[in-house]
């Protein structure tokens, strides 16, 4: 179990890792994640499940150098068995049928969005994506984003909000689904609220146990305390208190 079947390098900094775990592959839904320990005494790190093959019992995750994961990429080997792999965790995304969806994110933000986009298309949604070039990870993800969208718009940090805002204003968007840096999500959430467009955000929080014990991933949603690991990772972006999230995240930087 938990054997690394394949390591596909996207770039010097980013790899896609294919892991064998039949239970997780069968159960995983878009929006779910796993928690991995790469060595016996290592940290527990959450990763979005980006793709599954239920028949072969495989799941794919994407690991990006940086994010404190530098040495992990160096020790990963094919046919190695991961000591711990827990999942699928989190509540699955609720993807509507036949709607016009706008996905927004920076590079690593799109990693968890990919399975949502694929599912949305199979449900007859029109999938548009705005990708901002905040990170180098974008480059290697673009082919996949292109493959699962009807329309891809590229933006810079300063034009990003403008483009999204215009699309909503022109009535081209039923719902926005976002993932990325907290500040970016906060601004975009404000804009969707202003324009009265539904919006979900997929939060990427630090986690320790991932099963609701530690409370480190807690976030206020509509005045209620929620845990990203057991109640999320997807929340109504109009209700998330991004300010207190921004404040909390600094402690662990």
């Amino acid at each position, binding site marked *: 179990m938990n054997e690394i079947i394949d390591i596909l390098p996207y770039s010097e900094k980013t790899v896609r890792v294919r892991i064998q775990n039949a239970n997780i592959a069968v159960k995983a839904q878009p929006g779910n994640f796993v928690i991995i320990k790469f060595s016996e005494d290592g940290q527990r790190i959450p990763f979005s499940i980006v793709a599954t093959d239920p028949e072969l019992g495989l799941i794919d995750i994407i690991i990006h150098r940086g994010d404190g994961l530098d040495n992990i990429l160096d020790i990963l080997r094919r046919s190695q068995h991961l000591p*711990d*792999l827990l999942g699928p965790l989190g509540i699955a995304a609720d993807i509507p049928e036949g709607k016009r969806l706008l996905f927004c994110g920076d590079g690593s933000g799109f990693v968890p969005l990919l399975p949502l986009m694929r599912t949305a298309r199979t449900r007859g949604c029109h999938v548009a994506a705005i990708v901002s070039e905040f990170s180098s990870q974008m480059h290697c993800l673009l082919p996949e984003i292109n493959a699962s969208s009807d329309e891809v718009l590229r933006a810079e940090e300063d034009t990003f909000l403008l483009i999204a805002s215009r699309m909503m204003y022109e009535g081209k968007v039923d719902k926005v689904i976002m993932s990325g840096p907290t500040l970016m999500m906060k601004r975009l959430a404000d804009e969707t609220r202003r324009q009265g467009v539904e919006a979900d955000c997929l939060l990427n929080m630090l986690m320790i*146990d991932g*099963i*609701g*014990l530690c*409370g480190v991933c807690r976030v206020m949603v509509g005045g209620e305390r929620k845990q990203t690991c057991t109640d999320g990772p997807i929340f109504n972006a109009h209700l998330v208190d991004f300010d207190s999230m921004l*404040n909390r995240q600094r402690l662990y930087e």
Partner: protein
Amino acid sequence: MRTDRNETWRARLRDEMTPKQRTAIPRVKMPELSPEFRVTNNREVSEGLSLEQAVLEATRCLDCPDPGCIKGCPVHNDIPGFIKHIQRRDFPGAMKILDRTTVLPAVCGRVCPQEKQCEAACIYIKMGKQPVAIGNLERYAADFERNVTNYIHPVSEEDSSEESQEKEKPRHFYPMKVAVVGSGPSGLAFAGDMCRRGYHVTVFEALSQLGGVLKYGIPEFCLPNAIVDHEIRKLKKIGVEFRKDCFIGRTLTYEDLHRQGFKGIYVATGAGRPRFMGIPGENLPGVMTANEYLIRLCLVGPGVFGVNGVALRGRRVAVIGGGNTAIDAVRCAVRMGAERAMIVYRRGFDEMPARKEEIRHAREEGVEFITLSNPVEYVADERGYLKGMRLQKMELGAPDESGRRRPVEIPDAIEEVDVDLVVISVGYLPNPPSTLPGLSLSRYGEIIVDEESMKSSASAIYAGGDIVRGPSTVILAMGDGRKAAASMAKAFEEAMEQIEL
């Protein structure tokens, strides 16, 4: 389950000394590391009795004809029985007696609130003397067995494959498979009992380490992880199977378990979801739950301080609450080098629910107790980090439904205290997700069971421990596990009798 008090050796042992001579012996004092030394490291504070101490303490036991201690023990250990074996230096014999009723003697000897259970019912109390140190003796017997086993079969830390070689041939009399959800004390007790009764038992654990709260919630200096591992290894030897990283409800559903042929399920998922007080500032950086604090220290880097320690180090640390978890957390803070390690508790010192021994240890280690104080707000500095807490001063009013005097606010009595780290330890809620179709839950999410059989409203599902009773103790959780095992086994046996050929 009581042994024969009138066996020749035991009667002779009683005649060796008069009760008067026995009661004249003062209670033996458990050797402990000095406070100055122990705060510099993570070593177990109580060092355990020496052989001679254990025998002397065992001599104090009067071997009463109608022992109250057994009734005071939630799992009804045969206390005089094992103690008298210690007195005659038959330590394996003592362990054999304990093994019949408990799977975690080394753990219970350390973390049970004996002063409220067995020792509270000891005849010495009635005489106005200190009770027999039952907990210390239980620990002695278990530690003796473990030390001997480890001497004969040294275990390398990670080599679990080796264990399978030395596995005794499991005696599975029955074809039925039963599943246990959660590897904490309740699940382990259930698993041990069911396996000894001859059923195939598999324990599922969501975390990467087995032992549940015994591992993630109790620090090394109170309960070394190696002791929990030993108890688990013993269960593996008798044939219990364990599967870690398997979150029932997610990785496998309850339906999957049924489909895989499990005929009975015991749910012992515990109560570890942290409670908050709902006051301003609880989400500030610098405010964390006791679980976050303890998991980072106990589980992420067991025994290693400094790893993941950046956010965990505070010059002034306040732990909110007065339970065992709060005391554990504040003693961790002392060991992390805090200048001020404080307990903030809304009732008085005497009302604190933590074990008395733990409170004494904390006191010796320099922990400050700010009692009759309740935080009303955590205050941030200009950068948004925690810098202080506002405490509402309280006084004690009339007793509430728990029998303890209710704390009442003193108007306008607010105190501000500077802190760098606040650890919240004000209780726990049942672990999510405990829901499955057809299961009745309480308002807070505890599973409702029949108190006699521990059977839930869903067919073939039993439950016990904190998921049923809310935050409680290791020993009560174990007691539930044993009760559930007995009634599930009875249900199986009745069903088998129905089979006609």
